């Protein structure tokens, strides 16, 4: 991907101009794909039981997003308008298959846990949305930044939800390569004569919705730009 970036640097507008920096920072808060645009919710609910799954999922989306955005942006003047959706789909599908095969080969455990959700990145609305709304009308450089921004906006919500869910639901935290580390001493649990018990509700998908909702609540109360007038 570095080659494409270099190409852009030759053009008149510098890659990290103020406008382009906004492409990176906006999706983190003001136009966050999950909490503001409410896209990609399904995967956010399904794979946030453990932090490691959320991290791997985020990295997969980051890869597909960057690849898709840059490739579509490069081809933007050649893709016939009438078949652009199918062309985008082919590009995304190819990238997703690469990700899926890599995960299967190097991280079989996590790949099994993520199961169909890696495949379902193809239908992740964030990616299709950015290809349609941004990559088709912009040069590869800004598209690259836009992809990073949106993928990171998706990622931080995913990881934040997963951290809350895993700590309360399983009393543990897991990072890729470390496995799951349970940090609540077993003597605290009721079965061992203690008082504590993990909250099973946080393992169930509905609680992910509630946690996302709470994040939206906090975000809106801090960021008054997002409050609709009525």
């Amino acid at each position, binding site marked *: 991907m570095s080659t494409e970036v270099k190409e852009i640097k030759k053009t008149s507008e510098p890659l990290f101009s103020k406008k382009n920096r906004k492409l990176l920072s906006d999706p983190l808060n003001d136009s966050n794909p999950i909490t503001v645009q409410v896209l990609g919710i399904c995967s956010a609910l399904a794979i946030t039981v453990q932090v490691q799954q959320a991290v791997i999922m985020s990295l997969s989306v980051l890869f597909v997003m960057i690849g898709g955005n840059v490739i579509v942006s490069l081809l933007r003047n050649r893709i016939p308008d009438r078949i652009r959706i199918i062309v985008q789909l082919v590009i995304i599908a190819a990238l997703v298959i690469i990700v899926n095969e890599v995960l299967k080969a190097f991280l079989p455990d996590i790949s099994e846990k993520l199961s169909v959700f890696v495949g379902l990145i193809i239908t992740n609305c964030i990616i299709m949305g950015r290809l349609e709304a941004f990559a088709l009308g912009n040069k590869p450089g800004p598209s690259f930044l836009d992809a990073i921004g949106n993928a990171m906006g998706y990622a931080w919500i995913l990881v934040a939800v997963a951290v809350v869910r895993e700590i309360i639901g399983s009393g543990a935290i897991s990072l890729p390569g470390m496995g799951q580390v349970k940090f609540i001493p077993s003597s605290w649990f*009721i079965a061992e004569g203690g*008082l504590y*018990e993990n*909250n*099973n*509700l*946080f393992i169930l998908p509905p609680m992910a919705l509630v946690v996302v909702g709470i994040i939206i*609540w906090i975000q809106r109360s801090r960021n008054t730009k997002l409050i609709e007038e009525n």
Partner: protein
Amino acid sequence: MKAIHNLISKVKPNFEEGGKLSRFWVVFDSLETFAFTPGHTTSKGAHIRDSIDMKRTMMMVILAMVPALLFGTWNAGHQYYLSIGEITTLDGLGTMFWEKIGIGAQKVLPIVAVSYGVGLGIEFIFAGIRKHSINEGFLVSGMLIPLIMPVDVPLWMLAVAVAFAVIIGKEVFGGTGMNIINVALTARAFMFFAYPKQMSGEIWIHQGETAAIDGYSGATALGELANTVGKAAGSTEVTGIMSNFSLDGVYSMSNAFFGLIPGSIGETSALAILLGGAILLFTGIGSWRIMLSFLIGGLAMGAIFNLAGANAFMEVNPVHQIIIGGFMFGMVFMATDPVTAAQTNTGKLIYGFFGGFFSIMIRVFNPAYPEGVMMAILFMNVMAPMIDHYVIASNIKRREKRMKLQTA
């Protein structure tokens, strides 16, 4: 009374705008209006002139819950002494009356205190942030929650459940009167899904240090019935369980009606609940439409299951079916919640009927959710606005048709 009034008038300036303690105005205001009817009245045309305001309504509902609470307290002690073999079912119910009340109060009072403490604490915080006066809504929820909890519930879990119910069930929607689901049932559902080990099996009685005697089971009637599902009818296990439901069994119809069975604190005695129901109906606070149609719905589903008769659970007599578990409690205190129920009269009938219908259906079809009443009422809470919408739409249609006939 005079003394309280004098005290309030004396400290009032401190809490008013500019006073030292003006930050705590909401707290003061709620306590003042709790003790006395507010001095200010509506100056422009008010539509309803009645001495019953929201706080008085809420107090009436709490009054209606007192029989169930008192009975639950006694029953907690009763089940405790039964389980350790101090008394047997043959002893008169009056034996060791005060000891039973003592044991029960030891377990029930902390639960009530935690429920009110946590719930009101959150209400106060939100009222402070949002700068409105404290709503009365939690007075009832705070009493309902203890009544639908097992006696031995760990208090911190209760606190978490109450906090969840008040924040997610009510405050995110805008506070009292804006919630779409019943707050008390949200707390119960939270407990059920969050801490399933503490909400199923033999946890329904206070056990203490002493081990239970042989043959005593702390399981609820519904828990026992759920055990029969999936087992061949007529097998020794099923007949063994079903014998408990016969005329002289633990869960016999009379025991279930008077409430001498293990279960959540307030749900066991159909008699005490019906007493409360009578108060609600007499004062006109609870909707008779919902209660009646809920009852009919439950009986109807029970009768349908009787006809099908595919397993022992389905063959339970419909009347027996509705006096075990939380059905009665849900019917009288939960389904009639004026905020979350349907608002139109026809809507109330539909809402109540399906509430009762699904209650029995869920408990029989899904042994994993023995307490179908909770699920059914929460489900109908969500459906209530839609029911109202269609009732109103059909009413408009009917009247339009009539108007056309007249003009034609």
